[in-house]
């Protein structure tokens, strides 16, 4: 027997049989009414004002208490120097890790760079450390390729887009790896003494991000202002969605839906802007997914908030393969991260710590038992990023604009058309460009 539906149960419960009281019951009850009912003077006037249920009152009180607690905690966190935060994370990182997980060994101190020393360009950047042969073999069937085995259209090494340019943290001297730097700091006072300067730098990144935007492909060394980035940071709130890396890592999920995109496309075709609340970045990403299998790449983009910001794209799943993917950010390199959207691929915006050397580990992606380290030098400038990456970044930016952020739709359209020239399925790029132009037109009306 199939289970009864709610409606059927309700119907059965609501069935009215003949339940006529037996004759004489009314009289019996009436006869038992006491001659004097002490309801009289004690009964107050009916108060029909809607009174708040006690549980609701309790919930409101609990919410207020939680809000107050969260505010105090946030205030406290704002006062904590980031160095301490890093030290804590680094300390937990130093604890013995499971044998399969590995970060590049921090003690290998890269050569010191001076302030005047130019940043390494993509093709000059030190190559990511090759994985041990056994792991390379394990990575290969998963779609990862070693550098030099395959060339992609833009000339970057295949599989992982390599090289770091223009967006490299501005001319700060490259210190030893932050972890060993922290290890050397036995005196906490020293760390605290540097904290205000770091705080200041962090604040300047957050507040004045409009003055330190990302390099355009034409001027990779120059950080040019982007007003919409500043406006977005302001609108979203400085720490909206940002998290500090933790050793526990993040389990990546996928979402194959495209409902938001379908909704947006219909609305835009009708000359209306879609409801911002209905837009999910991941679903817009899916609509413009280029089907890159098993890819991890990162780059600066024209849309992130400042020079130390990068976009990291993870496309860890291939054709229905759903091995668990976990991502760990290296807290000594990544100051904080923010999930931009999760679809078939996942986009993270990350803020790097200043002065991180190019061969520092940024994150580790673990697919099943295989680790895929991502080093800083793999995060390339925008024009060196794969067309799939660029299209995904543009789609995410477009989704953010549909959700109410400010942004340059004309620039999105232009960049999408450019990306389309390098894409086999250029129709998607063209579609994104056209949608961006349509939205721009609707907004200008």
């Amino acid at each position, binding site marked *: *027997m199939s*289970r*009864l*539906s*709610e*409606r059927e*149960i*309700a*119907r*059965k*419960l*609501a*069935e009215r*049989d003949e*339940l006529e*009281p*037996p004759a004489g*019951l*009314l009289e*019996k*009850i*009436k006869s*038992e*009414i*006491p*001659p*004097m*009912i*002490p*309801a*009289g*003077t*004690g*009964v*107050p*006037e*009916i*108060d*029909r004002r*809607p*009174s708040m*249920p*006690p*549980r*609701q009152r309790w919930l409101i009180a609990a919410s207020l208490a939680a809000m107050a607690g969260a505010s105090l905690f946030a205030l406290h966190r704002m006062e904590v120097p980031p160095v301490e935060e890093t030290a804590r994370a680094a300390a937990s990182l130093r604890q013995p890790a499971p044998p399969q997980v590995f970060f590049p060994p921090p003690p290998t101190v890269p050569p010191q760079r001076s302030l005047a020393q130019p940043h390494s360009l993509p093709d000059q950047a030190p190559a990511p450390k090759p994985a041990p042969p056994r792991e390379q073999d394990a990575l290969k069937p998963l779609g990862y390729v070693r550098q030099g085995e395959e060339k992609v259209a833009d000339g970057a090494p295949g599989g992982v887009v390599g090289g770091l340019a223009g967006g490299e943290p501005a001319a700060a001297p490259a210190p030893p790896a932050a972890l060993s730097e922290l290890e050397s700091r036995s005196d906490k006072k020293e760390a605290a003494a540097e904290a205000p300067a770091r705080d200041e730098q962090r604040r300047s990144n957050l507040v004045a991000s409009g003055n330190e935007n990302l390099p355009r492909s034409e001027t990779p060394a120059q950080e040019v202002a982007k007003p919409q980035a500043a406006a977005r940071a302001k609108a979203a709130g400085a720490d909206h969605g940002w998290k500090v890396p933790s050793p526990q890592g993040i389990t990546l999920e996928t979402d194959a839906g495209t409902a938001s995109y379908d909704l947006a496309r219909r609305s835009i075709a009708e000359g209306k802007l879609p409801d911002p609340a209905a837009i999910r970045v991941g679903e817009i990403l899916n609509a413009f997914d280029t089907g890159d299998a098993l890819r991890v790449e990162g780059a600066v983009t024209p849309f992130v908030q400042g020079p130390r910001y990068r976009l990291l794209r993870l496309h860890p799943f291939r054709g229905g393969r759903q091995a668990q993917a976990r991502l760990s950010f290296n807290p000594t390199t990544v100051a904080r991260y923010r999930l931009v959207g999760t679809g078939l691929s996942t986009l993270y915006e990350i803020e790097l710590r200043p002065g991180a050397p190019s061969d520092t580990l940024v994150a580790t992606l673990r697919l099943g038992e295989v680790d895929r380290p991502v080093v800083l030098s793999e995060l390339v400038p925008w024009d060196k990023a794969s067309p799939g990456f660029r299209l995904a970044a543009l789609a995410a930016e477009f989704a953010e604009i549909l959700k109410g952020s400010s942004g340059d739709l004309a620039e999105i359209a232009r960049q999408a058309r450019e990306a389309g020239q390098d894409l086999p399925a250029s129709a998607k790029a063209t579609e994104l460009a056209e949608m961006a132009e349509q939205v721009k037109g609707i907004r200008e009306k």
Partner: protein
Amino acid sequence: MSPLATAVSTSTWGSDLRSRAEAGEEGRLLAALAAGDRQAAERLVERTYRGIYGLLRRLCGDPDLAADLTQDTYRKAWDALPGFDRRSQFSTWLFRIAYTTFLNHLRRPRRLVPLEEKHEAAVPDPAPAADEVVGRDMEGDRLRRAVLALPDDLRYTVTAVFWGELPVKEIARQEGITTVAIRKRLKKAFRLLALALEEDVR
């Protein structure tokens, strides 16, 4: 609108509207009762006793026992009337007394009547179509047993909404929770009832 919302709104929408008018009338009768008007008490009984009997009849499945419990309910109500704070309607308050009276009856072992036996006894002999009546009665009895087996809060909510025909708002006010919570209770109760009825058939 979900089936649950439809079902609840269908069963309570009319009573919601009705309850507003009745609240005013009840208020007048209670005021008269407070002034010593015994007829007001009689009017209150006339207005409410069918509903109370119907509820108890559905709860216990026995017409005679339901009549006894109805009388018990009013006796307790007259005694407890000084404590009635009038934050809910009189009928809602009375419903709660009837419900508690029934539960107290169940908790008295000497008077506990096995439901299965009562089911046998409740089948009328000269029914127009005996098999149909038996089938319907069995189904009703299964449903009744399933409702009685629900957890306390769910059982009270189901009986108040469907058998007591109380407005959802009134129940929410009396229970000190929101109407949304009441609907959630109903939804959960429906799931449990569906399971129980399904198992019963197997």
